[in-house]
């Protein structure tokens, strides 16, 4: 045990490990808060679809040799989030079909584009790391960390300030609108913030695994708690604990970061489900 501690202390002395922990905790926190709304509004698949869109956008940015890829990825993802949220309401192409379509389209075109135009010597490595986030969390620069901290604070501030309105809009859109809450505005806000979180989370777990950060904390919390506030708080704590455990395990055991965090979330969810099943009887 003490050897493990020593090893941990040794790694924590590196700034990049500390950066990874800070960023991991913040992203996990933001993702879990939004995840509650996403799951309850039946938008679970939206996170998944958007992460694929972000991957496609990233591929295009890489092809165009953009120096700052976020400049393309962020607006494209935000735009798609808005489009998907509104098509879900209008029902012309049914919400889940639209998401599936956009998601698989972006994935295919992104990969195709990268394989045709990319000049990188290690193409499959690049793609694998974008999809599963293998090492990018450990290669963050100080600027990226600050950017991430700034965005997270923004997301948290939005969530706290509009908490009650988000609750009302999530629970009962018609009532909220009838009482004069601007539902479309808040739906837009949710879409933008989801897109922000997804772009941030790509660094941590890669684009294929983002949904794990969004939905597992909310689902786990809903096994045990019955009020919106308790679920939100529990999801946040759950998510941060899983992210820290996942990161530490991956550093100590040398496993890939994204899948390890996702595995921690899955394990946590199973434990919560078990406790939920046992206490209900």
């Amino acid at each position, binding site marked *: 045990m003490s050897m493990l501690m020593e090893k941990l202390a040794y790694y924590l002395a590196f700034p990049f490990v500390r950066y990874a922990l800070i960023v991991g905790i913040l992203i996990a926190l933001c993702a879990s808060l939004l995840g509650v709304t996403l799951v309850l509004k039946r938008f679970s698949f939206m996170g998944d679809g958007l992460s694929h869109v972000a991957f496609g956008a990233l591929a295009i940015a890489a092809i165009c040799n953009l120096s700052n890829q976020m400049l393309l990825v962020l607006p494209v993802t935000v735009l798609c989030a808005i489009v998907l949220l509104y098509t879900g309401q209008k029902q012309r192409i049914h919400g889940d079909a639209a998401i599936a379509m956009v998601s698989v389209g972006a994935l295919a075109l992104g990969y195709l584009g990268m394989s045709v135009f990319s000049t990188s010597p290690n193409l499959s490595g690049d793609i694998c790391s974008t999809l599963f986030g293998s090492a990018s969390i450990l290669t963050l620069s100080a600027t990226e960390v600050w950017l991430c901290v700034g965005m997270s604070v923004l997301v948290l501030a939005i969530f706290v300030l*509009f908490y*009650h309105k988000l609750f009302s809009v999530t629970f009962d859109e*018609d*009532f909220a609108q*009838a009482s004069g*809450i601007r539902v479309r505005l808040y739906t837009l806000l949710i879409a933008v913030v989801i897109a922000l979180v997804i772009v941030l989370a790509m660094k941590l777990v890669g684009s294929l695994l983002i949904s794990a950060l969004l939905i597992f904390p909310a689902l786990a919390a809903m096994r045990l708690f*019955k*009020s*919106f506030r308790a679920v939100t708080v529990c999801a946040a704590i759950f998510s941060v604990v899983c992210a820290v455990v996942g990161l530490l395990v991956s550093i100590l055991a040398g496993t890939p970061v994204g899948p390890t965090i996702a595995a921690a979330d899955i394990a946590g969810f199973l434990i919560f489900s078990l406790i939920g099943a046992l206490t209900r009887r």
Partner: protein
Amino acid sequence: MGTERTENILLRCQNLALGYEGVRIVENLSFDLAQGAYLFVVGENGSGKSTLIKTLLHLRAPLSGTITADAGLRRGDVGYLPQQNPVQRDFPASVREIVRSGCLAREKHRPFYSKEEKRRAEAAMEKLGVAALATHCYRELSGGQQQRVLLARALCAAKKLLVLDEPVAGLDPVISAELYACIEQLNRENGLSVVMVSHDIPAAVRYASHILHIGHDQHFFGTTAEYLASPIGRVFADPEGGGQL
């Protein structure tokens, strides 16, 4: 009852045509809602009752015609009890959280509830007999309790008008009667005007001050006594022929 108060009109609808995307469901709909009135909106399925409610709440625009609201009736002053939506069946929310959310319309820019709003929510729960359930989970309540919770939420929002969309749908007769009693109490004691969509014509005849019957080709609007005397009312409210909706 009601007629002596008609000088104070809360809502006046003139020649409304309702529907969506060019499909007209209702045409030539005109009626007044007086302060303190208890209006039942009845009619067959698909006749446009719910569409009318959504139009009154500004959730959609009328295809043509006008709705004139009393100057004292602002948009957020209406308490609305919608039909249940499927999301709510497994939503983790406590009764208190839901009832408080009815207060949101009043203070647009404050992120948290004030003491006054919290007190309002407690009073509303007290009034509808769900105060003891405040910390319970909404999805674990019975159908009747859930409707009371939503009614308490509507009460938090309502200053002058309650709009209820089939509040007793799916409830057994005893629970329905209790809910009707609650609503009548809110109408009498709190002076709230009530607009209720319902299939329950016997209840309409018993509780309403006014009835709006939306038919496929013709509508009826008038007091309950006038409704019972009208040709359309005689068909639908007749005990022998009733309940055929």
